[in-house]
């Protein structure tokens, strides 16, 4: 059951091979059986079974059903869920029960999907290894000594271990793609503004974007269909028509122009990863694609630009956590300043504090022009680099991560090393473009993802390109030992 695609699961429900209650119970049992992965923060047994019962009624009456009706879809713990804890991986929100649903959650509910629980993540989505969560690190099912990547590490691990058939993630600097790459699953970061950010706890508002994480591009298309669309409640949401993402999955790739940014393939790229990427690109050539080298000269400044902008926006966004209206409040505060300072000091972890401090500094008087303004200008130049490259080719391809899954604890003491984990993904967030990670092979028995970057709102084309590769490869079907 756990190896079936979403389409197959939906078909089984309609053919009455099993009910949604049975399907949900099956996945809840798998989640409970593999708690050692630590991929969930909250397992919502009761409400999931209630949702499943409602889905069964809807399916029996054939009342307004969708391909996701009755299917378990786990949610990253960054999306607010009414009545069920939303912690965002932080002690600050350990007691937080949101009074409303995020738009993404509302859309899954309307589709009739079942939510088995909330997935573990780096605290406030700040991290590249899922080690900054208040609830402890998530383990990578491919090698339990290693990290699953972050910040959507719980989503990636749960999918890789087949604990859920579908999940969501969010990507501010690579947080959908990097864990997808490290865990051998398919993840899509949509164009900025494509998926509503309403009710998705904000980290860096001009970069954050929710998206689907799945076992295949075909499944990701179904999830994105539900998630995407204009939302008047999100002032950064873009009012553009949502195409039928499943309809074009089988389009031919004949004549597809692939650009390889030479900056992605410098000598810093690990040879084993480079070999996997090269083999995958050769498969695309066999499918009819043409390949050419492109250049993006400002890409080397993506990390500094990103960390100024992300830290600045995070210091502003996280100012709402002050112990007044919700979340953690320190014990017996002496005065108001003591309450703010101690509540924030006791409830935020070290990485969150580091970024708040950095952002506060970068935005402070005297430094604004040198850091924030400069970073926004560099961002423009990086975005222009992408525009130029994508005027010459249809998509760009390259690695997702400079390394495969690394050991738990290996990089956690060195923030710069950790920040460099996102070196190939961050620039895409600065430009706001859509990009995917798809399973492309293994290096030293660890998964390697191929990154595919497209033009604005070209998610359908990306899914088509990913799906065609998955028709001629089996990497995405492989399951880690112990989770078959």
């Amino acid at each position, binding site marked *: 059951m756990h190896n079936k695609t979403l389409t197959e699961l939906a078909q089984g429900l309609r053919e009455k091979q099993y009910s949604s209650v049975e399907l949900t119970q099956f996945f809840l049992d798998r989640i409970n059986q593999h708690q050692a992965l630590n991929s969930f923060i909250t397992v919502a047994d009761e409400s999931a079974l209630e949702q499943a019962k409602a889905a069964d009624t809807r399916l029996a009456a054939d009342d307004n059903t969708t391909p996701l009706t009755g299917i378990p879809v786990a949610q990253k713990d960054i999306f607010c869920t009414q009545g069920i804890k939303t912690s965002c991986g932080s002690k600050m929100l350990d*007691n937080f029960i949101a*009074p409303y649903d995020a738009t993404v959650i509302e859309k899954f509910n309307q589709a009739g999907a079942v939510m088995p629980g909330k997935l573990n993540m780096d605290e406030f989505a700040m991290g590249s290894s899922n080690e900054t969560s208040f609830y402890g690190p998530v383990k990578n099912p491919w090698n339990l000594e290693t990290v699953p990547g972050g910040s959507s590490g719980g989503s990636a691990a749960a999918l890789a271990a087949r604990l859920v058939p579908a999940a969501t993630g969010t990507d501010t600097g690579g947080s959908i793609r990097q864990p997808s790459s490290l865990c051998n699953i398919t993840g899509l970061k949509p164009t*900025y*503004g494509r998926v509503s950010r309403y009710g998705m706890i904000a980290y860096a508002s*001009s970069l954050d974007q929710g998206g689907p994480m799945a076992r295949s591009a075909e499944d990701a298309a179904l999830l994105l269909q539900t998630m995407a669309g204009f939302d*008047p409640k999100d*002032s*950064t949401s*873009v009012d553009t028509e949502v195409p039928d993402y499943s309809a074009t999955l089988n389009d031919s790739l004949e004549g597809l122009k692939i650009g390889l940014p030479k900056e992605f393939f410098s000598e810093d790229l690990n040879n084993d990863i480079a070999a996997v990427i090269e083999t995958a690109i050769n498969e695309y050539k066999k499918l009819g694609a043409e390949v050419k080298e492109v250049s993006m000269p400002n890409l*080397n*400044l993506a*990390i*500094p630009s990103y*960390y100024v902008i992300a830290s600045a926006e995070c*210091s502003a966004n996280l*100012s709402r956590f002050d*112990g*007044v*209206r*919700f979340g*953690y*409040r320190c014990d017996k505060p002496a*005065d*108001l*300043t003591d309450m*703010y*300072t*101690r509540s*924030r*000091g*006791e409830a*935020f972890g*070290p990485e969150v*504090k*580091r970024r*708040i*401090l*950095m952002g*506060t*500094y970068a935005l*402070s008087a005297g430094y604004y022009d*040198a*850091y924030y*303004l*400069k*970073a*926004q*200008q*560099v*961002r*423009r*130049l990086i*975005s222009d680099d992408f525009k130029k490259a994508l005027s010459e080719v249809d998509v760009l391809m390259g690695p997702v991560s400079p390394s495969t899954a690394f050991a738990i604890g290996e990089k956690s003491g060195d*923030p*710069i090393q950790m*920040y460099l984990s996102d070196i190939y993904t961050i620039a895409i967030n*600065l*430009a*706001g473009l859509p990009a995917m990670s798809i399973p492309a092979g293994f290096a030293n028995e660890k998964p390697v993802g191929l990154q595919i970057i497209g033009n*604005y709102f070209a998610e359908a084309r990306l899914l088509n390109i990913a799906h065609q590769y998955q028709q001629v490869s089996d990497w995405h079907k492989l399951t880690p030992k112990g989770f078959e």
Partner: protein
Amino acid sequence: MSLTADDVKKIAHLARLGINSQDIENYAKDLSNILDLMTQMGELDTAGVQPMAHPLDQTQRLRADVVIEENQREHFQAIAPQVENGLYLVPKVID
């Protein structure tokens, strides 16, 4: 560019962020390293480049000036650390 322990204390105060005194040196070291990374941007000439705040260069969308939200005070205050008579309670501000 390097930050001192005093700089970190000052920034932490501005951010109303409590930091354990034994961690201050480490924050100063980490933040200095991150600032070095950020200073790399200074090498690029960006004179005349329009700063980019939104990836699609969109501006704030406006809506009609009408009330669309219902009053949900009780609902929202149900999760507050301390409330009384519909107000959020905080330590005394004025003597």
